[in-house]
């Protein structure tokens, strides 16, 4: 994977992209949110200081998902009434994007679904409702009103300063999961499955004192 480089327009530091197709990244030195326009970077905002994370995953963590190797290149942090969670942006060997969600050390890998799949309106995605995508049945199990908390690393789209986001989580009866993100005009659908920590064979994890 080639790692393109650019210069941070705010502090002049050398910014390296972990992923060649990154649309947005965060300068690791001054925490400026930088949007990529070919070779130039545009500063669009700043990420507030993030508290040290309790997630064992960090930028640069490697892993495997169904025999496909991936690297963690970016992160979106969300917060809600009962705590927070991370959506780690992972890139596979073939340069495709995926998401490793990490909520209280419960892990799931999912990918953005094709536009052709039908997305219900927010009002229709109520608890207990069933929807079918790609032949699998999913049931709505949680509706979360979350707040965007911060970003880190490379992301495949522009994403910052979202006020309130509604996430609808669905589960299937065989470990599959789906998420509807209602932050955009057209809701985003992610399809994937829950994974066990051990099955991901993660390397380059965060080290914790006493563990």
């Amino acid at each position, binding site marked *: 994977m080639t790692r393109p480089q650019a210069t941070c327009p705010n502090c002049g530091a050398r910014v390296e992209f972990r992923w060649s197709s990154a649309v947005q990244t965060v300068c690791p030195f001054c925490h400026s949110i930088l949007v990529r326009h070919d070779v130039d970077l545009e500063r669009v905002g700043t990420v507030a200081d993030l*508290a*040290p*994370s*309790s997630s*064992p995953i960090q930028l640069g963590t490697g892993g495997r998902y169904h025999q496909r190797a991936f690297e963690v290149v970016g992160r979106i942090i969300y917060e809600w*009434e*009962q*705590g*927070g969670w991370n959506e780690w942006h992972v890139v596979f060997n073939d340069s495709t994007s995926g998401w490793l969600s990490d909520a*209280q*050390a*419960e892990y*799931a890998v999912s990918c953005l679904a094709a536009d052709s799949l039908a997305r219900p309106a927010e009002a229709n995605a109520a*608890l*207990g409702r069933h929807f079918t995508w790609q032949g699998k049945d999913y*049931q709505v*199990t*949680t509706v979360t009103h979350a707040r965007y908390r911060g970003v880190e690393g490379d992301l495949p789209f522009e994403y910052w300063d979202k006020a309130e986001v509604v996430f609808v989580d669905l*589960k*299937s*009866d*065989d*470990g599959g*999961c789906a998420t509807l993100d209602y932050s955009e005009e057209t809701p985003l659908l992610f399809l994937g499955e*829950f994974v066990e*920590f*051990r099955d991901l064979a993660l390397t380059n*994890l*965060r*080290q*914790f*004192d*006493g*563990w």
Partner: protein
Amino acid sequence: MVDALVRSLTCPQCGATLTVRAGDHTVTVVCSHCNSILDAKDPSLKVLQRFAAKQLVPQYIPLGARGRWRGTMWEVIGFQVRTIRVQGIDYSWGEYLLFNPYEGFRYLTQYNGHWNDVIVLKTVPKVYKARATGAKPQAVVLGETFQHFQTATATTTQVVGEFPWTVRVGDKVDVSDYVDPPRILSSESTAGETTWSMGEYVTGDRIWQAYELPGSPPDPIGVYANQPAPYPGSLGRVWQAFAAFLGVLLLAAVWRFGLSPHAVVYEHVYQYVPPATPPSDSEAAAAALVTDTFTLNGRTSALELTTETNLDNSWAYFAFALINDSTGTTYDFGREVAYYDGRDVDGYWSEGSTRDRVLIPSVPSGRYYVRVQPEGPPGGTFRAFTYRLRLRRDVPWGMAYLLAFVLLAVPPAFVLLRSMTFEHTRWQESDYSDTGDDE
């Protein structure tokens, strides 16, 4: 860079020092000195609730204790007690929250000395209503079927330590348990949202071993919902083995009783006329006779002697001696035959039999004859009777087969009875017990 998950806080209510062990996972932390629940996400640790402490269930594993469980270290960071009320009686159990920064969270539950290892399920089970009256609702998940055991409302009555969600004393959830021993499937619902978890029964000894706790675990009382039966898996196999043994027994019986020749080696009819008056010993001996000689072939085996008489309301006694003509070895034994019948107010009755059958054990091959000394009630020709002696070789001993059957049946019957008693006791604790009404 090494990150710290542990931090110290000062309780705003009483000033005590609190330890938070799970980094930013922790949402609520309890100060056990003043029994206040604090908001861990709030920099000023806002007090969410103050509660009265109740010692309903002992906390056996202290906060901060680490144990090796399924190949990973798990630290106890929280403990809560929840209570349900069934038929006016409160039942409380303890729940330990275990944390590992890589693998997340799991739980240990404890009730009356019964322990369970619980994880949150990420698949949604399918729930089916009871199909017939008397049947129970079922839940199916990951290819396993669970029977409904109990539904109740659980109230949080005690909290200690920290939790990755908001917890308050007095919180209520609707809990439903489904069992497939040794596993238990539970659902917890509030406001339409349902969380499912799967538990597996573990013994207190395993917990004490993993956490290196002093002393011994509390003795389990009664039978728990998903406690494995005393003969897990064996019950079916024992009965399968019994069926196999029975098959062998039956085949052997058919072969021995049905197919083997049991040829008659000697047969003769005799008549006995008792004396008019009771004879003396020498007179009695004089009535003895001997049969012709006959040959017994083959291996040492049993010899069947059948005595058929025409007695009616009388008795006879035969002193037999089987004598080997070559070696002179004798086998002495006596047999009695008695038969009485008549008619009275209840109708026809009879007692005894006119024939006798006996097996002489382990008779080696050779040339033999039988000496017979018959006896009967004195009375002359009036009491005369005829008797037929029939000798057959290698006759099976029927009682042995019956004995074998009984002996083979005892263990499966015992195992079945014990299992049934165990299962009955188990279900007495459920919504389906046969004592009075249930919720």
